[in-house]
Every structure is written in structure tokens, then in C-alpha cells.
């Protein structure tokens, strides 16, 4: 009983293997498969920013 959820997920996964596949020809289209240069630069500059502190001390 405890893994019934996983059983449903597994069953859905198995059924999808034989399911209709209307867009198979589009799945590996190389166009747009990466971040744009602007997006890479954006993430890079975010990562270079100083960090934000977490909710800290518990001094009560």
C-alpha cells in the first residue's frame, strides 16, 4: 500500500512509452537548445553578485 503512488507513476511512465508521438520530429531540434548569450551573461552577473544572508540568529 505504501508505494501505491509510485505504482501509479510507474504505470503512467510505462503507458507513455507506447503513447502517440506527434511531435517526435521536433524533439531534437537544435534551434533554441541553449541559453542566449544575453541570458548567460545575465546569470553570470547574478552569480557574481555578493550573497544575500539567510535568516540568521535565534537570540530569543
Amino acid at each position: 500500500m505504501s508505494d501505491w503512488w509510485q505504482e501509479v507513476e510507474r504505470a503512467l511512465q510505462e503507458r507513455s512509452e507506447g503513447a502517440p508521438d506527434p511531435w517526435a520530429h521536433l524533439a531534437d531540434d537544435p534551434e533554441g537548445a541553449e541559453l542566449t548569450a544575453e541570458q548567460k551573461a545575465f546569470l553570470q552577473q547574478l552569480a557574481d553578485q555578493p550573497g544575500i544572508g539567510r535568516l540568521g540568529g535565534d537570540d530569543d
Partner: protein
Amino acid sequence: MADPADVGAALDLSDPTRPRRVLCHGPRGAGKTWWLAAAAKQAEHHGFTVARTAGRASDRDLPLGALAGLLLPFGAELDRLGSHGEVLRRVFAFTADSTDAVGVKVATLKALSAIADRAPLCLAIDDIELVDTSSREVLDAALARTTADPILFLATSASPGAFPADSVVRLDPLPLSEIRAMLVERGIAAGASERCAVASAGNPGVAVAMADGLSDAQRAGTAPVPDLPRLGGELADELQSRLRALGETSCRALVVAAAADGGDLGAIGAALGRLGEPGLEVLEAAEEAGVVEIVGTRLAFPDPWMRHAAYHLLAPASRRAAHRALAAGFTEAHEAASRVWHLVGAASGPSDSLAESLALVAADAARRGAVSTSAHTYERAVEFAASPAVRDSLLSTALRSVIDGGDLAHALRLADIVGGPIAGTLSGLPLELQCALADVGELATGRTVAVPNPTRADSAPKEGDEGGGPNARRLASRRRGWTAAAAGDHRRAIAAVGDPPAAPLDLVVWAVASRHAGRTREAREALARADAAARVPWLHLGQWYGVVDADLELLAGRQADASALTLPVGAAPALRTQASSVLARARLMADPSLDPAAEPTAWADDGEGVLAEVRGLVRAGVAMADTDLLEQAISLADKARLPIEAGEARLWRATVEATRGNDVSDAVRLAHATLQRCGVRGWDARCAALLAPAPSAPRLVDPAITGLSQSELRVAEAVAEGLTNREAAAKLYLSVKTVDFHLQQIYRKLAVRSRTELAVRMTTGAPTVGNR
């Protein structure tokens, strides 16, 4: 039996002993959400205002997100709170420059108290283990201080320890008979109830959902009920057959909708266009059937099962195409993270480019303090790496980030990707990765992990003179910090790990160093923030945390807490020695008449350096009653600026002198003053015993006062000082109602009738808080 009726006692506000925090736990699918909904409904019937929220994995790193979900609906109350309301509004809007933890806790306390003052309040949180840590901390603190307010806290979780609770309800799958009876009570005919109960496999929520799906005639028992889907494959078929009945075009649109995590209709429509599908109008049938809900520009699946079922309606390649079409819509710079995640869904295999993009997203999450998200994203990045060089580089960065974030358990999982830091598989890996793995291994086991090329990592002696990259420097400085702290060289230890340390895992060694420097209050504060170490009690660092915590509690005079110190079988020998020392000192503190020579392990220290030297001299001096050795220990401790060791050595020297009949009052006062300056109260009783003439009676301790709880004692002392209830509440961060409540208990326990009587009683033999 996990019946929401179990919350009945908690709803009885007239009972001061009622449970106020009820946690329901059980395996996934046991019906916890159903239990919470039923319990909250019951609270509503009793006149409670119910505030609901649910933990979500995706929001786990959003500080105070769950608290915002609970409190923002009470906008008017927040406005009336003035500055406290503003504090909450600022942090909920993420516009605060910094987050003042105490300020948020006090403001939350005020808000809960004010809301509950209007009508009893029920806080209902589903999946609390997925709620952000900050919200849980704030709620824990606020609830602990509103014990007398009409507030009921209900939560569900997969594990029983997810949140402190007065009452824990274990939810197991219900027996069929109970589910059947429950459905019959809802007016479902006996035969149909039996069918639904069997098909639900013990989950009441599933059973109710199945019964809801029956026709009126089937519910009334006048039409036959077909075989209901059993769980697993049949339920999957049942869910998907309902979707397929909507038509192929709708099904294809539903796959895109299920893949679009945020439910943005614009993004879904654009993706459908890229896939050559008709527009959003094809989703109308799904909306009419109740499969999806469309509110404004958002689409949602009310039933998460249906979302799973929809996502799997097409073959894997078409699902990837759906993600790719969605990714193509996120072209703006600030949409980079959404694009990356859809590219992950679209990927059919490893890709260095994708791995590197994921690493950028992970780095941003780390920068925002989203430690858990960052760790998981790095993990995905490492999984996607196609070439060993990229994988090693990412793993090296990921480990550094995860360790810096304080998630040692996750760092160990990452380390396992290359066989673990202890498996002797470091050779052949880049130096930076070796250093990161060694760092994880040493924090986890306490054993030094050999890293080749010592000139670049192992023996890097000074800042700025260290070879290698950041991981090598980190490993070297952490090693320096631990070695120096163990030796009692607190200045070098603090210099090595930073003051204060940037990495949460370094708070333990910083606390050790501060303790040696005589700054026990700062050490305790640092340890209170070292939750990263407290979360891994099965690892070496977590065990160290336990020993240091016990030591500091002992020095503060809380012997009972220190006595609870236990170590697992596999703990490092040095740690065992330290733990034995703490326990022996606890015995000496608990009994001022106990001869210190009977507890030689109190100064056991098998380390190296001046600290071990001082303790060795004390041990020998006490054992042989040799005041010269103790004098040497004092001199050495003073010279090395180890004030606690110096104060304690003075105390032992005075103890030896006293046995010879000498007047030791000045020496004891000096020792006591030294220790008090360091915040050490644990030796107070021993100092008092040495100062008191032998025949004098010990200080009278009022047994009734000893019977007060810590909270009651704090309230009693505050009131005895002359504070009003409101002033005491402000001083102790409690609600006024809670102070009133405690005061009633105190009056009853001490059999006093007025504040004056209480003040008199407290000055004639009360133990001091923190020194009981």
C-alpha cells in the same frame, strides 16, 4: 486510528492542558491532506478562523514564504500592528534590506496574538517538511510564546519530527470497514461504499474522490457501480481515459499545459503555436470537465494526479518537444532559469552546455541563500555533464558551494558520484576536486584525508601563500582552524575560519575558539546559529556540535542538559575523550563536595598544544594535591589567554589549599570573578561551598520553586523584580496572555496570593534561572 476527531481535545479552549500543536504524519498516500482538511473544517465549526498554507518543494528556499501565506490574508490586522506589521509586510514583499530574525519573530508573535484576540485561530499547514526553514523557526518561536492564546496549530508531514508538537497523530491506511462507514455516513449506498473503499486501498481522500465521481443513481444504490479502478495501472488507465475522452487535440494541449510548471497561459499558447497546434481554445473542454482551472492568465490542475496523467499522455520524445517549445518562449535575460529548466526537460542525454547553464542557475540560487535548491541544481548539472573534465570541474564547484551553504549531507551525496571521499579514489582527479572531497570527508568523519601535492594544499601555511584554487585554500584554512582550536590557540583558529565565519559549518570551530577565549555567550550564540551542524548528528561535525553544546551548557550552569550527552559507537576517540571530560565536569559541578581527584577524566585531553598542557598540569596537580603544578597551570593559562582554564585552575588550587585549613576566600573570589567574566556559572555552587564556613547550612532551596518550569521561573523572577505583566511579556518575548497564564500557575504552585507575596517568596531561596 487517525481520525480528525482526535483534534477534538485541542479545540477545547477551556482546558489549559489541551494540545496546541497537533502533527499528523504518515506515508505518502495515507490521507494526510484529507485529515488536515477535515480537522480544519472541524475547527471552523468550533468558531476558529482557519489560515491555511502548504509546503511546496519549489518554495522551500523562499525565506518566510509559508509565513506570508498564513498571515497576508489578515491584512487589516497587520496594518493595525503598526511597526510590527510593517516589518512583516517588508519581509513578505522581499523589500527588506536585511532580515532581523528577532524582529520577525516578535512581529509574528504580535500578529498571531492580535488575530487570535478577535477569534480563535487555527493554523493549518500541509506538508510542513517542505515549508521553508525560516517560517518554521519563526512559527516555532511564536507558538512557544502564545501558550495561553486561543491558537491551534495543525500540520501534516511524512515524518513525526518535522515540527515540535504536543500531540502527534500517526496516520496509517484506514481499515476498509472505517472507510466504508465514512462513505455511508456521507450518504453513499453500502454497496457503492464497499467498492470505493476497496479501490482506495486505505486512503480516505481517494475513496471520497472516487465516490464523488459516481452518478447520483450509483451513489443512491439504484444503479450498478462498475468495477472501480484499483490503484496502480488501472488507476493510471482510468485517469488517462477520462482525459482521452476530451479528444486528441485537447490531450496534446494538456501535455503542454502539464509541462508548463508556472501555468502561464501566454507561454502555453505560444508553445502550442510552435508545435503547430491550435490555440488555447482547445483547453475549454478540459476546463468544462474540471480537469483544469483557468483563473486570469493562469492555468492550474486542481488534481495533481490529473496533471501527472496529462503529462504522460504522449510519448517521451513528444514531451521533450513540448518542453523545447516552452523553452523557446523564454528569451528574455531574466527568464534564463525558466529556459534552462525546460531545456532540461527537453534533453535526451548529457550535454556540457546544459550542465554549465544549470551550474549558473545553481550559483544564482546559492547567492540568494537558497541552499537546498542550489545543491539540487548542482546535482542535476553534474548528472548532465558529458565530459569528465566538465563533470570534475562542476563537481568541484558544486561541492564548494554546497559546503559553503552548510549542507554537509548533500555534499556527501555529491561526493558519492566519484566514489566518495573516503574510498581512496582521489588520485587521478584534479587537485581542486580532491581538496573539496577531502574537505567533505574530514568534516564527515574527522579523519584526515590524504591529498597529494602537499605544497599546494596540505601544508599551505599562510593566507596568500597557498597554491591551488579556492577549494585548496578552503581545506587548508579549515584544517588550520580545527588544529588551532583543539590546541587552545583561539586567535589563530578564529583568524583561520573568519570572524565571524562566512560558512555555517565553521560556526562550530568558531564556537570552540570563542569558548577558549572566555567568550561563552558569543560561543553559545554561534552554536545556536550552527543549525547546519546540528542537522547532521550522525556525522563527525554534528557530534562535535553535540559535545561543544554540552560543554557550553555546563559552563552556563545547566548541568542537566550536559548530562544528556551521548555519542554513537563510531565516534572519534578524541571526541570521546572530550565527551568524558564534559561528563566528569558535570558530576563535579552537580556535587560541590565531590573530591576532584576522583574525577581525573575532567581534564582529559589527548590533543596537542597549550590547552592539553594546561589540562595535564591541572590533572596532575589535583591528583597529587600539588599546588605548584596548579600554579604552573594558572601561569600558563594566563599567558596563553585561556581565562576559563585559568579560573578553574585557581578554583582547584583553592580547593587543595582549603583541605590544608588555609584561608582561601580571596583566591576563590578571584577564581569566581574570572569565571563570571567569562559567563561561567557552573562552578558557582563549588565557589560558594569553599567560601562558606564548614558548619553553615547550605542555601535553602524552596522545593515549591524548584517545581516551577523554566518558563514559569522566568515569569516569576520578572514579576518579583516589580515588572507589570505587560512589561514582563515585553522583556521575555511572550504574549501578555501567556504571562497571565504562567502567573496563575505560579500562584497555584507556590500557594501565594499576591505579587508581593511572590516577591518575598522568590527572595528566600529561589534557584536562579539557568542554574537549577
